[in-house]
């Protein structure tokens, strides 16, 4: 990669990280976190080693953003359960599949059982209908990914593995999930949904990392930060909430640095 292109990539990614930080801060503030705590939690969550490596910052940020969007989409749907959120969540999972197919598929398999609307819980045919509705876009994208992988011998995973930039692929990966940016407060069902996404995202990424794509480890760690903010934001209000949230995100960040250090050693 030429130095000029690298600089542009780093600056763009840095700008995007700042924008995400602002979004996370606003989200926490709207959930009655004090401004100071919200700011500290966001800084701790986004202080990830991957964001300090110029060659990886772009791909790792996209990876983290996609995980965050799926989590946000799931939480949003859990709260509203209207038709728009079905589309948003389906689109977010579909977009996520481009970066983290295993994580996307895991989320797609697990989420519907938590997020089924009330009426679908009583009727197997309605459950089937809901599954078809939610999984249509992910299935379509899975088909497209398989086609490009098998027939055209190209895909997005190489980029995340190698750290090489691919603006088109990155845009393709993010575009369907972007509307999930429309965030709002989550309830407990939302917290469950975000937890599932976090687990799925982490497990999917880890599986990929286990097959020898070392850079993916950094990307997974980076993606846990924004998801952690979503999670702590959904904790029930109480006197200990802010302190616990600070401790949890702080520990997450420390863990991230330790694992990265071990990997480099």
């Amino acid at each position: 990669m030429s130095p000029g292109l690298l600089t542009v990539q780093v600056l763009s990614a840095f700008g995007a990280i700042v924008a995400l930080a602002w979004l996370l801060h606003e989200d926490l503030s709207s959930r009655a976190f004090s401004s100071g705590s919200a700011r500290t939690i966001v800084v701790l969550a986004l202080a990830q080693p991957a964001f300090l490596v110029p060659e990886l910052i772009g791909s790792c940020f996209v990876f983290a953003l996609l995980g965050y969007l799926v989590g946000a989409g799931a939480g949003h749907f859990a709260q509203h359960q209207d038709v728009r959120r079905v589309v948003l969540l389906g689109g977010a999972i579909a977009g996520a599949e481009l970066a983290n197919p295993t994580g996307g598929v895991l989320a797609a398999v697990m989420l519907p059982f938590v997020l089924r609307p009330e009426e679908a819980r009583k009727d197997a045919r309605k459950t089937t209908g809901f599954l078809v509705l939610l999984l249509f876009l992910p299935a379509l994208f899975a088909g497209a990914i398989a086609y490009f992988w098998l027939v055209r011998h190209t895909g997005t995973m190489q980029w995340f593995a190698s750290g090489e930039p691919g603006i088109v692929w990155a845009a393709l990966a993010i575009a369907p999930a972007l509307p999930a940016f429309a965030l709002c407060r989550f309830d407990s069902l939302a917290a469950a949904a975000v937890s599932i996404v976090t687990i799925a995202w982490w497990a999917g990424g880890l599986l990929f990392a286990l097959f020898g794509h070392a850079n993916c480890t950094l990307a997974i760690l980076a993606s846990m930060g924004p998801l952690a903010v979503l999670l702590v934001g959904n904790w029930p209000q109480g006197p200990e909430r802010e302190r616990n949230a600070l401790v949890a995100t702080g520990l997450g960040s420390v863990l991230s640095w330790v694992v990265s250090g071990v990997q480099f050693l």
Partner: protein
Amino acid sequence: MLGPRLLAQATFGLERKQPQFSARHVITRAQACWGLGLLVPVLMLVVLRPGSGSALLTAAVAVGYIANAVFRAWLFWVGSDLEKAPGEHPSDCDADLPVYTILIPLYREANLIPQIAEALAAIDYPGDLDVKLVTEADDFETVAAIEAAALPWECLHVPASEPRTKPKACNYALPFARGEFLVIYDAEDRPEPDQLKKAVAAFRNGPPDVACLQARLNFFNAKETRFLTRMFALDYGLWFDYLLPGLDRLQIPMPLGGTSNHFRTAALRAIHGWDPFNVTEDADIGIRLAQRGFRVKTLDSTTYEEATTRFGNWLRQRTRWMKGYMQTWLVHMRDPAALVRNAGWGGFLGFQLFVGGTVLSALLNPILWLTFMATILFVPGSAAAHATMETMSVAGIVLGNALFAYLAMLGPYRRGWLELSPYGLLVPFYWLLISVAAYRGLWQLVRNPWHWEKTAHGLTRMQPAAHVR
């Protein structure tokens, strides 16, 4: 003496007063010249340069098809913004309710008279109801059934004449309407009991330029175990629960849907009623209201109809709708500048995509399939042209149909009819049937433009009251 004058007024009133809006003449000379002017160069290109010409044409067809699907997706998105929906509450001041006219045009529907009586009896409207059953004078069976039922409502007999259409019957009844507001119901309709009260509230609380409210339509036999009724329910769910509200929000001229159109009677008279030569007079009148500076909005109340269960019946109905949309598009494109002036550029483009696009998509769909099959069987022209045709036809088929299918699946969500969603996967096949109807409609537009193919009702085995949670 009054009868012939009324009949002439009902049949030719619009044509005499505003001939530019009458579908009696299918196409104007200028439109024919424009059409030929566009068609001839395209055909020459394909004949003289078959490879690149066909590739270019395929690309245009695919782009047009996808554009229509994307426009519908956008309308869906806008229309699905339920949180911002006003949601009318029924008027709670019963003493203040105005006279409301209900027109029910009937033709060969003697079997539905008991159902009409039941549906009207269920309407909760403490004000003065001015119900008019409108029949053709030579439809002796229906007339006899009405007399035998001894219904307490006025029955008007339209003298037999051509064109034998529903809008002509409605025009005939319009001078007799006493109501400040007027609604059209079909014989098999089951409106929600408080629909009229909701309409009064919506008219009174809304802007004064709102001349018409379109209630949502769906089917009481939506879950009948037949392919057609289920596909129809997906279709109506999408159309009336999402797409029309989307048009409403964006203030794009709205083609009305057949029944449950609530009008301010004065506005209806001001635009000279319906066009008796248009076989989708409902679609036309929605656009014509916009051309006259009125607005059409959606009403959050449902009328349940009967979805046809037989293919022949369905095909006749769809053919008429497609033909009517073609008529409507041609009528309002006689003077495109006037349409832009009256509806704005957004309204003009929306009209092209929604009314024109509905017909065009149905006509283009089989062309894409045929092109795709042709690229498999033959290699026309250069490899580049072949690759373009293959890529574009596949893109059109996959993207267009995937989007149409997904939208259809989302259609029943608002009503919680999730069990119908999987049938959306069959939309590509359903669209091919619609294409058959579109080509049939095109043929009829040339041969028999005003012919009204009657849809038979009363064929379902489900009871209207059984609709549906």
